[in-house]
């Protein structure tokens, strides 16, 4: 296996597109997940129901099916999105559903006495959430959120089926033109692993930082 002589044009831009899909979808997903978590814990029933339905649909179906429905289904509603925005939309919705559950788990794990202490000094529900509960919830949820980021980075390979030229698509093209599939996918695999190694390290550092007060 001679990886160095493998002609793999577009490898770097493939990595860039993969990073773009993963990072942007994660950020959107985190914002969306936060809002859905708030809706889920809201006192208003319609908000709760909407959140439960959304989470159920996007956690309960494969991301590949979601991607197909967004890419081929939205045009029927006269919404035409190019491949990259379609992929980002799908992955954000998919990640948002999972992240809202991770965040909700974190909030529920915070001791009820913390709500009491915040409430007893006259904090409103929102202030107690922001100043007291969420910072502690994030620490609890950090491992799950980090794991979701890493999964998402790998799930972006699905975008290759809707013609997004990301890392997996680059490897496929290189493989089919040179018939050296094994080498091409070895390179792609190594690139995914490298990206995620950086993420593992970042996750470790973040968890240590969030856990500082508890050492």
């Amino acid at each position, binding site marked *: 296996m001679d990886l160095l002589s493998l002609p793999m044009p577009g490898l770097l831009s493939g990595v860039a597109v993969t990073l773009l899909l993963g990072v942007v979808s994660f950020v959107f997903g985190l914002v969306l997940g936060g809002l859905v978590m708030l809706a889920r814990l809201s006192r208003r029933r319609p908000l709760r129901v909407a959140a439960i339905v959304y989470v159920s649909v996007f956690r309960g179906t494969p991301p590949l099916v979601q991607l197909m429905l967004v890419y081929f289904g939205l045009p029927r509603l006269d919404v035409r999105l190019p491949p990259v925005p379609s992929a980002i939309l799908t992955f954000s919705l998919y990640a948002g559903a999972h992240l809202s559950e991770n965040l909700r788990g974190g909030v529920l794990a915070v001791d009820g006495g913390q709500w009491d202490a915040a*409430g007893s000094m006259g904090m409103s529900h929102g202030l107690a959430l922001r100043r007291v509960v969420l910072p502690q919830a994030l620490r609890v949820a950090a491992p799950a959120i980090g794991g979701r980021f890493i999964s998402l980075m790998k799930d972006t390979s699905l975008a290759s089926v809707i013609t997004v030229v990301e890392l997996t698509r680059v490897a496929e093209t290189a493989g089919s033109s040179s018939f050296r599939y094994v080498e091409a996918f070895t390179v792609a695999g190594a690139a995914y692993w490298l990206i995620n190694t950086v993420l593992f390290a970042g996750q470790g550092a973040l968890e240590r930082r969030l856990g500082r007060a508890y050492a």
Partner: protein
Amino acid sequence: MSGNVAVDVRGLHKRFGDLEVLRSVDLTVYSGEVVVIMGPSGSGKTTLIRCLNLLDEPDAGSVTVHGTTLSYPARGQGRSRRRLVRDIRARTAMVFQHLNLFPHMTVLQNVIEGPISVRRLPRSYAVEMGERLLAHVGLDDKRDEYPARLSGGQRQRVAIARALAMEPEVILLDEPTSALDPELGAEVLRTIRSLAACGTTMVVITHEIPFAREVADRVAFMDAGHILEEQHPNVFFDAPATARARSFLRLVPKGGGPPSRP
């Protein structure tokens, strides 16, 4: 006692499901006074002080703090009423049995959180006050530690400083020594005694008879959701008026708990 009423509750009723925890409780606490609440488990002591803070809202009766009266059952749950509830909560500081310090904040941050985010005091002012209060409870060297690194007695004193920082009408303490060994308990009681000497208004749930004798202006004895008697501590401990209080006091160790003078 000065004539100013700090907290006044009339006809408080509170039920949790089928359980009637408070059945018509009246209590007046004057400014500068220390009221000790005693009584068997399940008599409603904790629920009473949670109602004084409105952390639990009563089903019936009224709560007056600093001239603001809220009556129950509530007519409507408007924004302005919720604001009044929060206002009363901010003026009646709780020290919980389990303390509930904020573990993600340092000692100083715990103390200044309420003044900054609820009372909207300027940060520099709050920090100055926080440092003064920490010095008062003997923890000025711990200001940047996290609660996890403190002893039980130190945590209890942080909780007291956090309550004082609200500059409340009254501080409500729920069994402040129950989780501490006698030595740490004595340290906390010393702090509470010095607050009492400074004229801090307090309602304290405790089973420490020597401490109650020394610090309390009045002892309120609760049983089954009622205040059965309210007496000067010497009268209550030496000659309780009710048979229920007599039988309760027989079971509380007289010299038990931390010594009153360490």
